[in-house]
């Protein structure tokens, strides 16, 4: 009996210590490391953020760098991780300060993280092979389609198209390969990224339809990290006012007008 009691006591102490240690970690700190903004990304969204060798480059990367310079922080990029794990990692509170991955601001995501102000307007694209007969998203009903796991494209197709078989992929680029191989009939993902891919790596594919979803990208921070949220928003406002934002925007999207202000 006393052996049993001892066991219970030891277990209780262990559980308590562990949970207290972990709660302590995720306390309301502005930055995990002083003076360093730790950025997490999927790094698979050209021209927004993509790996060039082992270095992330792109519109979001440049914008992030401008924000960090403005705020006097160093930037540190975590190794790329699957998109669907980003917000879980960020919400976990021990590794990442900010998620930068062409993240659409949605009410559902806003339950687990906080979003900074939007910095880019986006939509969904229904991408098909160039020789396929589909001309709009609705034509894909009852077919096998794909999307990156955890994205708004996946959610849109699941909600709006009847009888589809949805194949989730870890990365959009994997989905494009599967589309090329004929494993799926269409891939749903963000329209600006689709335009980039079709103009560069996948000229044999076409956009069947741009679906006006009125999405906007925003950087995500930990829920309740108000200090960082306000700093980033203020910095974005400054960069928009002094023209830095527009300069970065035009570098990557010369044919578009920046619509965020």
């Amino acid at each position, binding site marked *: 009996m006393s052996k049993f009691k001892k066991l219970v006591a030891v277990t209780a102490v262990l559980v308590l210590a562990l949970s207290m240690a972990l709660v302590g970690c995720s306390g309301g700190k502005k930055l995990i490391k002083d003076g360093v903004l730790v950025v997490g990304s999927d790094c698979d969204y050209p021209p927004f953020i993509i790996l060039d060798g082992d270095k992330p480059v792109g519109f979001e990367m440049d914008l992030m760098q401008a924000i960090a310079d403005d705020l006097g922080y160093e930037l540190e990029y975590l190794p790329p991780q699957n998109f*669907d794990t980003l917000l879980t990692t960020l919400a976990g509170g021990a590794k990442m300060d900010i998620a930068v991955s062409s993240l659409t601001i949605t*009410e559902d995501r806003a339950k*687990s993280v906080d979003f900074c102000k939007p910095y880019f*307007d986006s939509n969904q694209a229904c991408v098909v092979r160039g020789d396929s007969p589909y001309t709009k998203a609705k034509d894909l009903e009852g077919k096998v389609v794909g999307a990156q796991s955890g994205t708004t494209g996946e959610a849109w197709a699941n909600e709006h198209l009847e009888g589809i078989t949805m194949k989730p992929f870890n990365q959009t680029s994997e989905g494009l390969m599967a589309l090329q*191989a*004929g494993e799926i009939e269409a891939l749903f993902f963000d329209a600006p990224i689709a335009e980039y891919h079709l103009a560069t790596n996948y000229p044999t594919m076409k956009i069947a339809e741009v679906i006006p*979803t*009125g999405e906007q990208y925003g950087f995500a921070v930990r829920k309740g990290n108000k200090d960082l949220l306000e700093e980033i928003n203020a910095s974005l406002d400054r960069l928009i006012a002094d023209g830095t934002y527009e300069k970065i925007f035009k570098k990557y999207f010369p044919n578009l007008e920046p619509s965020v202000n």
Partner: protein
Amino acid sequence: MTYVRVAVFSLLFVLLLGSLLIAFPQSAEALETESVTATRNEDGGTDIIGGKPTRLSWEGRVGNNEKVMQIVINFPEGCELADDAYLFLQEVIMDDPMHPRPDNAVKHEYELTQESLIINFTDGLRPGNKVIIQVYGFQFPAITADYYITGTYVDDKGLSHILKEYSRPVSVIGGTALENFLVWLSERDWVKAWNSNAFCNSFLNPVRAVASVPTLFGGWLISVALVALGFPLAIPVGLGISFLRMSKLWILRFLSSIYVNVIRGTPLFLQIYIAFLGLPLFISGMDNFTTGFIVLALNSSAYLAEIFRAGIQSIHKGQFEAASSLGMNGIKTMFFVIIPQTVRRVIPTMTSEFILLFKDTSLLAAVGVFEMMMFAKIQSNISANITPYVVAAGFYLLVTLPLTRVISVFEKKLAATDGKEAPPEDKKKKKPETKRVGLFKTTVPAAVNQDTGNG
């Protein structure tokens, strides 16, 4: 006379007006309903459950020559609103159809009740634009049925029109027993206390754990099916290759050793990618599941081939000699003398290969096979919680732990019988036989080597 003329004219006028009114809704001149949908809100499922908050979305396109000043959407009878229900409204500017832009600052006032949603636009929705109306915290009645959403709108001339019904209803199913249990569970005090700790909540949230069990069980069955089809397929292939590896013809030995070494020398994950992205280019119509278990079988066959070869070669030479002295030919010797003795020796190693293969089914999630890992991933995504992975770990252990036990029992038995049966000459043998097994030159013990490291 004039009377008749007036009557004819007015009749014509009425007819003209009537036909205009009929013609109007069919053209793109009026606000057109593009879709009426609701978000799936079943825990771990794909259905829309009544009596539980979901997000109702109404999307439409404003006609080309009108402005929309008011939209009224009528909800079916029995719908309810959660306490924190609210409206999200967005006008999407369609000037450039390739680059629609959202306008979140549409000036409007709204009134949201259980019966209807009335939105008044201060400046009106502009011609040709898309409007997205989303009601968060909307609850359909807890009765299985198809629901149609109706409504009206007022244009800038003050004319009221009926909103065209969307061709497809929202199919709702009444609350399931599981859903009711989850609601009950989430209201328990101990659950609330447990979940208030960030660590406990994200690793073992009781509500999420229970919610994920049914879907994960379905995924578990698929994982088991994958290995249950793949492994038996791997056994004959592996046996065949092990014979080729021991063949007298060098070319057969050469080819089979290439097969074994390439498959054992590359990661299964990579083989899966090659198979899934490459095979469909040549063979069409193979579904993911079939491709999945075939890849697993091919991978496992290489490991099994080595296990079988080691097993066969561990049988004492005397057995072959005895069989031939009884007048048995090579094939007979193999099937009636050698293999029956081998089976007993290779069973523990085969079982551990089975365990490895079962765990490796999880790799197929990366290429879109709906097995347990995939379901755990989906479950985790929708809740931003790690609990489904922890539950999935339990499901894997459900298979692997008993099998590990089986192995140790077999090994004990094997050790005991081998000890008893070992002929005295064996112990006097001057030096142990050295044979090539797997990638290394090793001394072959009575039991087969455990070289199956593809985990």
